């Protein structure tokens, strides 16, 4: 166990450096969410007057939670790439021929994603606050948002690891990530569930992204809503359990 922690920590630092030392990583993650936050909050400014938005009178404040989660989504959407590149160039083999545990190698790819997603989401959160959004729950809520974003990131990263490990193709991995974008767009990131067609409301009942957004929205606009938080954490746990056990299986298949 101590060996696992030691190896994961030091290999994980390397993975994190690999991320930090490419400045374009930051831009590619926050650009899209920030653009949506800035443009859509202006473009659809008056949409909040429609019934369904309730007492919310700032579309920017409504939009912010969704863009925070979208940032965490973007932060891990291509996470399988790194491992694929290192599978291809032999670095993975080099690690496999070192006297370390197999699972340390995988954990060192995943654990940094928690921080990657949390920090990136935090940046977009801060920008939202500067633009006029607020956090009802204060500093505690701020930390909760980072925690939920990070947890969502690490759980959702399996959606990139699985195609990467199974197809061993960068193109396929990228394409698969694009296929997941509708999950984001169909969530309650842009409009409340009551304004959606019936079938979409049904989909959203099982869309973990919606539950995560709603938990963050409550922290930002209404206060601690433990039922919303519970739903978010349970959907993160279920999504993580399914995706990451498949990742473990695919990794074992690749590395055996």
């Amino acid at each position, binding site marked *: 166990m101590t060996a696992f922690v030691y190896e994961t920590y030091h290999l994980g630092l390397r993975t994190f450096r690999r991320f930090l030392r490419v400045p374009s990583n930051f831009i590619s993650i926050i650009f899209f969410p920030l653009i949506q936050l800035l443009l859509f909050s202006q473009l659809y400014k008056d949409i909040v007057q429609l019934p369904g938005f309730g007492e919310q009178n700032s579309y920017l404040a409504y939009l912010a939670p969704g863009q925070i989660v979208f940032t965490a989504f973007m932060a891990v959407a291509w996470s399988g790439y790194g491992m694929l590149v290192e599978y291809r160039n032999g670095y993975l083999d080099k690690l496999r021929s070192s*006297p370390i545990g197999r699972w340390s190698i995988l954990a060192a790819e995943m654990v940094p994603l928690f921080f990657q997603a949390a920090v990136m989401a935090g940046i977009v959160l801060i920008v939202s606050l500067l633009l006029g959004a607020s956090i009802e729950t204060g500093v505690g809520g701020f930390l909760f948002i980072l925690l939920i974003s990070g947890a969502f990131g690490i759980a959702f990263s399996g959606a990139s690891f699985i195609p990467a490990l199974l197809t061993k193709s960068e193109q396929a991995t990228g394409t698969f990530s694009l296929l997941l974008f509708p999950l984001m767009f169909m969530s309650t990131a842009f409009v409340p569930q009551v304004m959606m067609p019936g079938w979409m409301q049904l989909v959203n009942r099982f869309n973990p992204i919606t539950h995560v957004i709603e938990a963050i929205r409550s922290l930002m606009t209404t206060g601690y809503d433990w039922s919303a938080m519970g739903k978010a954490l349970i959907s993160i746990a279920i999504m993580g359990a399914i995706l990451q056990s498949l990742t473990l299986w695919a990794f074992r298949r690749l590395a055996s």
Partner: protein
Amino acid sequence: MSQTDGRAVIEVEGLVKIFGSDTRAVDGITFSVAPGELFGFLGPNGAGKTTTIRILATLLNATSGSARVAGFDVTAEPQRVRKALGLAMQTPTLDAFSTGRETLDLSGRLHRMPGPERKKRADELLELMNLTSVAKKLTGTYSGGMKRRLDLAAALMHRPKALILDEPTEGLDPQSRTALWEELERISGLGTTMLLTTHYMEEADRLCSRLAIIDNGKIVVEGSPEALKRSMGADTVVLQLDGTGGDDRDGQVKQIQERLGDLVAADSVKSHPAGVSLAVTNSSTAIPELLRRLDGDGVHITGLQMTQPSLDDVFLKHTGRRIRAEAADQPIMMGW
């Protein structure tokens, strides 16, 4: 051979690896490498060298046979094999976003080297590999030769009992290659047991104390480069002759045959564009005698050229083909 504990560092016996249903990449290979030895695998691409190395490095399971590194079986005790092993693969496997020092430090950490020793060893290797000035730069900015040297340094961090190098100079320009040969000679001189694969004959010839020529998954012949070349028999000597006799080459051939008598086989003396060629079994002792006998009227030697059999000739003799620098045997990525 200095076998301190009387036991080979690398022992491979009857190793077989079958891919799919009938591709015998490794077909019953047996060899051993004694402590301090620099053993080479010479063969064309696709001969089974890399597959053997991958089995030794615990990256691939053998179909049958056994392989031991530092006394540990690769299948039964892979973790102990990994501890004993330093590995550098065909292309340097470095993290482009780590610096040279970070690369060495991580390598030391994975082998659980304590902090001060790690630092000292990294300093030492950076110096040895002439990388001290770029230690703080990202490896992605390194030249091909620098990457090779750092990769080698990373493999040497934990003072491995056996260093395994797959095509260590593949893709390097001639200058970097010669420089790396010098490094490898130095490392070998420090007593590190090494196994390397190559398809460059000069490399095998220069570096290896013993080598095995491998083709189609089998070892066809094994021995020191000198012994292998000597087994080919005679050296070829070309006597460059004065132009005045050019119109009567046959006469000169005859004359030389008569004068050399028992020294060389008469039928090996042949006309050659530059003069006359002949085969000599042991050129270093035979040549002075040969010159003494030819010194005199009629034959004016203006130059002498001696060619020893090369490892390529050895390869040709045992496989019926020449080693060519074939295209790398990487499969093309297909699908998706």
